[in-house]
């Protein structure tokens, strides 16, 4: 799995952190997405896909 985030699109909603807090965080200074792990293990795929689906800014891309 490979994850790409676009901080230019991110609106800091924090939805991804709620979906998978081992993969995504929010930066302290501006609240934008901080990708903790760009290639987490395959068993995290469902939560990561959910994070991408609920992102209100479509700022998360996931490739298998």
């Amino acid at each position: 799995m490979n994850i790409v985030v676009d901080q230019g699109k991110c609106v800091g909603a924090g939805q991804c952190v709620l979906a998978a807090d081992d993969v995504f965080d929010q930066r302290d200074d501006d609240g934008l997405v901080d990708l903790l792990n760009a290639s987490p293990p395959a068993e995290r795929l469902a939560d990561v896909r959910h994070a991408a689906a609920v992102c209100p800014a479509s700022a998360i891309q996931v490739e298998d």
Partner: protein
Amino acid sequence: MSIDAERLKLPLARPNVLELAPLYEVLRREAPIAPVTTPAGDPAWLVTRYEEVRLLLGDKRFGRSHPEPEKASRISTAAVQDGPTGEFTTEEADHTRMRRLLTPAFSAKRMRLLGENMEQLVDSCLDALIAEHERTGVVDLHRGLAFPLPVAMICRLLGVPEEDNELFASLSERMAGTEIGEEAHKAREEFFRYMVGLVETKRGALGEDVISDLVRAQAEDPSFDYVEMVRLCVGLLFAGHETTVNRIGLGVLFLLTERSRWDALVADPDGRVDAVVEEVMRLGAPGDLGLLRYAREDVDIAGVTIKAGDALVLSTNAANRDATVYSHAEEFDPDRPERTHLGFGHGAHFCIGASLARTELRVVFAALAKRLPSMRLAKELDQLQVRATLTGGVAELPVTWRSA
């Protein structure tokens, strides 16, 4: 757009506070973007299908401002989401700056850290309610829990004195009032003056809170208008309690009007509360309108042409019950496979307080299920007083756990 006799007039009357007008189902199927007349008497488009509501919320061709605000359709007779806001030419830049400024204070991590604090607060509310119940046999969860928790949390975050709560709650109620005419706009002016007073009092001793952050940012940035800053503070204080108070009320009603829903949560509060909260966010439908947008340019979509300047009412309430997206869409089912909804909106204006609201709702419903498992409504749903405000909800939540 011209008004014709065929146009639907908003709001569409609903059977009760938990259900929507059956006509929404017909609209989603046959006219997902329909011409309507707003409660203020002006033309607008009502958008009801999930696909279009989500698409339009994420589309930058639609905004909150209008090039000629005085000519824009008015939506509601309340003084909230009643017409365009912001500068047409700088809207996107202004909004981005505002989000950058506020997002850190409302981040998921910070809200999670507040969770323990919230648990203590909820426990003390419940202690007081339990003591009162010993004497009276019936207590009002609205007054004793649904209202004080969100108010206390937003006061702490924004740096607003908690003892002002009766004042700003009554200003909020009047500002969102849909049946009081000009009074709503007077309340908005009073709320503005209250906030100017608070801002200027704080300016001498700025602290670690959101209003202090905004005062600092405005003082340093000549393009950040003072009036805009004060309006933002009013908006945060209004939205930061009003919405969650209502959502707690609607959640309690969904859970207690069908015993099996409540029993399922009581059986496993920690395991089930997150899914219950998401279902309350999906199905809970406060207010009868929706999110307001104005088209920035002409747009062809779903078989209609929306002209630049046209108003749109995006019914997230209707979208969240779209049968093409959700199986048995009208049923309250926390176990449903569909995990997304538009209860916090979508796109650039996604609710900045979503993590705060989720944390509050999770703490409240887990605590209620653990501490008051035999709780039931003390009045029928149809007898509960519904608030005549833009954000709806109930004015009372009488419950009892006395053995029948």
